[in-house]
């Protein structure tokens, strides 16, 4: 909790991370100044791209005392405005799941290798990044806590599987290796409340540690202050739950 008599400073900049397959990718990195120790958080951007919302949110985590990094999952697709790059990815059916896992795990290792690290790293993502959060937390043991914000297509019918997205993340539930917080809107279509319930049932069946919150009066993307989907009460409560969850699982 920030107090008015506390020193605060941060460093925020773009850096290069050696991602999946040894590829150099860009990442936005924000960390509090000071000796620490600080927990780390990897932010997985949404399909609208590696955009201002994610830069801002990365800095927000630094303000709250986390070393935070958001890798550019679309780095290999070329460079332009985040929208133009994301539009290209949208038309090409997204980026491969395996590549996302590699890029996110590499980013976590950067955080854990910092001299100021407390050894704990969490991850959070929204929209497609929420789906990626569930995926990565199931395919890797690098993380101590995971937050899925309205990740669509965690549950996928057979006919939605592609070469890039070959397995529905729900099918990896047995391997989920981190406590999971899920934030969802009751009016969302992707994921629908029925799909969230299906995911919850799988988590329960496999004895996983999780907590899901379904917000009435909210749809998809209710944290996005620049979109009509923004819902102030639900977003404020959701952020409180994120800070509480990471506070419990990522403290020294």
């Amino acid at each position, binding site marked *: 909790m920030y107090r008015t008599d506390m020193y605060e400073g941060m460093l925020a900049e773009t850096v290069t991370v050696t991602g999946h397959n040894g590829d150099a990718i860009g990442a936005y990195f924000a960390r509090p100044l000071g000796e620490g120790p600080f927990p780390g958080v990897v932010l997985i951007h949404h399909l609208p791209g590696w955009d201002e919302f994610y830069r801002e949110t990365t800095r927000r985590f630094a303000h709250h005392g986390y070393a935070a990094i958001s890798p550019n999952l679309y780095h290999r697709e070329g460079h332009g405005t985040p929208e133009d790059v994301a*539009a*290209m990815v*949208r038309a090409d059916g997204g980026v491969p799941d395996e590549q996302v896992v590699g890029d996110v795990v590499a980013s976590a290792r950067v955080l854990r290798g910092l001299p100021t690290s407390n050894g704990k790293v969490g991850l959070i993502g929204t929209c497609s990044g929420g789906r990626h959060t569930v995926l990565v937390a199931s395919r890797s043991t690098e993380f101590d806590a995971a937050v899925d914000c309205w990740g669509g*297509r965690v549950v996928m019918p057979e006919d939605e599987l592609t070469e890039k997205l070959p397995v529905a993340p729900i099918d990896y539930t047995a391997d989920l290796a981190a406590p999971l917080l899920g934030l969802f809107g009751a009016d969302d279509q992707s994921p629908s409340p029925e799909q969230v319930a299906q995911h919850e049932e799988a988590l329960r069946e496999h004895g996983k540690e999780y907590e899901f919150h379904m917000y009435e009066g909210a749809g998809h993307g209710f944290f996005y202050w620049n979109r009509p989907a923004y819902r102030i009460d639900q977003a404020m409560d959701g952020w409180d739950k994120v800070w509480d969850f990471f506070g419990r699982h990522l403290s020294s």
Partner: protein
Amino acid sequence: MCTMIAEIARIEGSGKGARGWIPIDRANVTYDHPFQLAVEHSLNIDFVNAAEGPDSRIAVELHPSSARALVRAIEEALARGVAQTGEV
């Protein structure tokens, strides 16, 4: 964007965007979250030159009903043009 619904049309034409006129060779048609339009999902058309990089894009985001109106208008104009000129 969570639907991942995308259809690609190989086309031949020109489009005018921030960089002036560019040759375009693809229309990427998606039904997914828009960047700007104030709805959760929209019919999006990106006219692009695939070889020229991400910023070679002329974009529109349409309400689904507007997209259907556009389809009808294109079909009607094409039918009248073909009837009048004999071109295919």
